[in-house]
């Protein structure tokens, strides 16, 4: 399916493009971060430490006014039966213990970003895969058979498109609830991560033992996005079905399923792949939006973290900004890969023009 010529094109486009290399680097980095999260996150993402709350990232210092208990001679002052407090200006210094700072509840932002990558990648990949599976099947069928089947399927797709995706997603999550699928994290359970962490001198802490797949969210984003795949697949099927090699396959007696699977699909795959990379980015964004609004289903999510940081926007800006940057960088990386693929695989025709 991937012919040597295609590989050559891919390599050539890659070598010529700095951006493509950057895109690949970013995405690979994010994936690695997600896979090896227990090894590199300094803290369990959920562990709170109120005393270190709102610590800024390295290089920054903030001040804030807090209500603090008055302490004299090592003990709390009590007057009239109440603990005395006063407003005092406090300096929050960055510490190396939390290189990216902490959030409102003292959770380490670096660890949350690292674990948040898991959610984004999982939802992005599975969501896209599911959307592609449904969409491509529908699209190829519609495009190959045409007529009433095509009409029917495409009308269904149009109906889906008529709904604003975010609204639909929220409604579905509301109806179906936030079902979670929990898979064991082998690195933690087998103790592999623990040894490594000790060696690195990470603080003690129980890393999450499961990988959480937000099932509903995945279903929802797939449901919302399959239409794009269907459109592209249908267009390709329409043009490929008229090719003579398709006629030739039918002339030999191949069944429709075989023709679609062996002839139409492989020749339609190129734009579908390009679309796929773009869709992963779009789905990551959609998931972030859902989490932001509270419809997550995942324990740690970049979108959710952004929401958490809203109330601290003016004072502890990093709580929202850093997860936001993570999303931006990931999406850019995916888009760059999409560009690279499109340039390399288009026009995708294996012949050359005449002189």
């Amino acid at each position: 399916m991937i012919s040597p010529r295609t590989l050559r094109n891919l390599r050539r486009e890659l070598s010529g493009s700095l951006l493509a290399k950057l895109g690949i680097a970013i995405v690979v980095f994010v994936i690695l971060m997600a896979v090896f999260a227990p090894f590199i996150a300094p803290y369990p993402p959920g562990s709170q430490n109120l005393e270190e709350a709102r610590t800024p990232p390295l290089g920054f210092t903030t001040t804030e006014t807090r209500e603090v208990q008055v302490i004299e001679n090592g003990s709390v002052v009590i007057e009239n039966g109440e603990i005395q407090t006063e407003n005092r200006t406090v300096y929050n210094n960055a510490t190396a213990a939390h290189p990216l700072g902490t959030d409102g509840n003292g959770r380490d932002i670096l660890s949350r970003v690292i674990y948040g990558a898991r959610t984004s990648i999982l939802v992005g990949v599975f969501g896209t895969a599911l959307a592609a599976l449904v969409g491509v099947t529908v699209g190829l069928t519609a495009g190959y058979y045409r007529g009433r089947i095509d009409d029917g399927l495409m009308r269904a797709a149009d109906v889906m498109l008529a709904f604003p995706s975010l609204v639909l997603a929220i409604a579905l999550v509301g109806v179906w609830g936030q079902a979670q699928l929990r898979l064991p994290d082998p690195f933690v359970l087998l103790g592999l991560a623990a040894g490594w962490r000790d060696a690195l001198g990470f603080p003690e802490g129980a890393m999450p033992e499961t990988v959480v797949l937000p099932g509903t969210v995945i279903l929802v984003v797939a449901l919302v996005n399959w239409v794009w795949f269907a459109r592209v697949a249908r267009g390709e099927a329409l043009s490929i079905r008229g090719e003579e090699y398709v006629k030739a396959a039918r002339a030999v007696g191949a069944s429709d399923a075989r023709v679609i699977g062996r002839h139409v699909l492989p020749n339609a795959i190129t734009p579908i792949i390009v679309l796929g990379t773009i869709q992963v980015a779009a789905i990551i964004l959609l998931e972030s939006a859902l989490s932001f609004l509270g419809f997550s289903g995942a324990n740690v999510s970049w979108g959710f973290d952004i929401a958490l940081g809203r109330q601290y926007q003016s004072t502890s800006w990093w709580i929202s900004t850093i997860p936001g940057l993570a999303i931006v960088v990931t999406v850019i990386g995916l888009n760059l890969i999409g560009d690279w693929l499109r340039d390399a695989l288009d026009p995708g025709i294996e012949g050359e023009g005449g002189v």
Partner: protein
Amino acid sequence: MYGNETGMDGDVTDDEVTSPGRAGTDGAARTDGGTHARTATTAGTSDGFGEPVLKVRDLRTRFFTEEGQVNAVEGVSFDVREGEVFGIVGESGSGKSVTALSLIDLVDSPGRVTGGEVWYRDAELAGETADSRPGAVDGDYVDLRQVSEGVRRSLRGPAFSMIFQDPMTSMNPSLTVGEQIAEAVEVQRRARANPRRTRSRTQGYGLGQFFVDSLLPTREYTSEGSEARAIELLEQVGIPDPAERADQYPHQFSGGMLQRAMIAQALAGEPDVLVADEPTTALDVTIQAQILNLLRDLQEEQDTSVVMITHDLGVIARMCNRVGVMYAGEIVERGTLADVFEEPVHPYTQGLLGSIPDLEDPAPRLQPIEGNVPSLIDSEMGDRCYFADRCPKAMDDCLTRIPEYEVTGADRPAGVPHQVRCVLAEREYDPARALSADYFGPDSAREPAAADGGGAGEDARGSGRGRSRGATPDRGAGAGDGHGDDGEVRTDE
């Protein structure tokens, strides 16, 4: 009477070697990398056509692609005399279409015309250019490759015109046919009115002009006179109801009708030279007959010179006075119709003729040319005759670049030489010196001829050598066929 000095219809190239039979000349070769078109000392030739209106010398066009440099046109020379139809015939990958485009400077990147001269006869232009660029002028002839692009562009329409293979894609689908023809007429009209101005300026329909025309709705590019003339032209090419048809769009025309309209557009400027690139290939045979009749009639009426490019030898026979056969970017044989069809010397020409089924006299077996069209990529082209790897008569002599030879014969019209790029023009085929069958590699499909079955004067067809066996071997795979397809794709019913 004619000799090497006049270099008139003789196509003089760098390496010309004259064969001994030529009337007392010394075969002086040019050494300065170019040739001069000599002014004719004789007033025409014995087959009735006038002076050449176009002289192409050593034209070279290259395409600079990722796979390498493609030598699409490799030193092509020919004359086109006034009122004659000169045919260029070749298969795909021969470079014939690129030659046509190169003539009118329509070659697009990554291609470029890299060498040669295109001498066009225009006394007025010669006079104008003589001062600024004396090297580009020779008597009444101007070398178009040395004048400015603006001048070249101004010549399209009034001097040169082109019709293409597929009229449906050559016409703008969003303008009516009448508008497009009127536009061509208008260009001509303005050129006539203001020759100096249109030649020196870029004659551009620039952005500014576009805005002005869009904002002021009353300003149309075409005048009423042009529109009327457009209708006239449509009638001239045989389109019924021309006034109504002029208001229709290209998709409302049938293929044949649209080709007529394209011819009308091409002739709007009353060009001296019409270049027709496969004008009837996409048409059905009965429509083709109509169009060829039309072209003939118009050509005779207006005394236009035509360069007719096609792969169809039948069309060549019907339309052309003289023919050039192209292979791998070169003209390998050139002469009158009789020269090429009845006394072909070059084995490729012979092979071509032998592989066509004859409508009136079917032979039991066709004699195809073995092997495939060669790659035109510079690095892959050897320093030898390009046809040698498929030639049944290749000899040791063929392992160098072959110049053009002239074929002499008793009953030939004077002034119209028969030239061949093959040593067989002056030597007999000698099996002793023949290249072995696998000289060009074990995959080569050549079968060296046992004895001389060729040379001038032999009828190429039906010579019944009957050497073909079972499945014709076709081992030249993996060459990837460079850039040539093996033929036009006909979209048929």
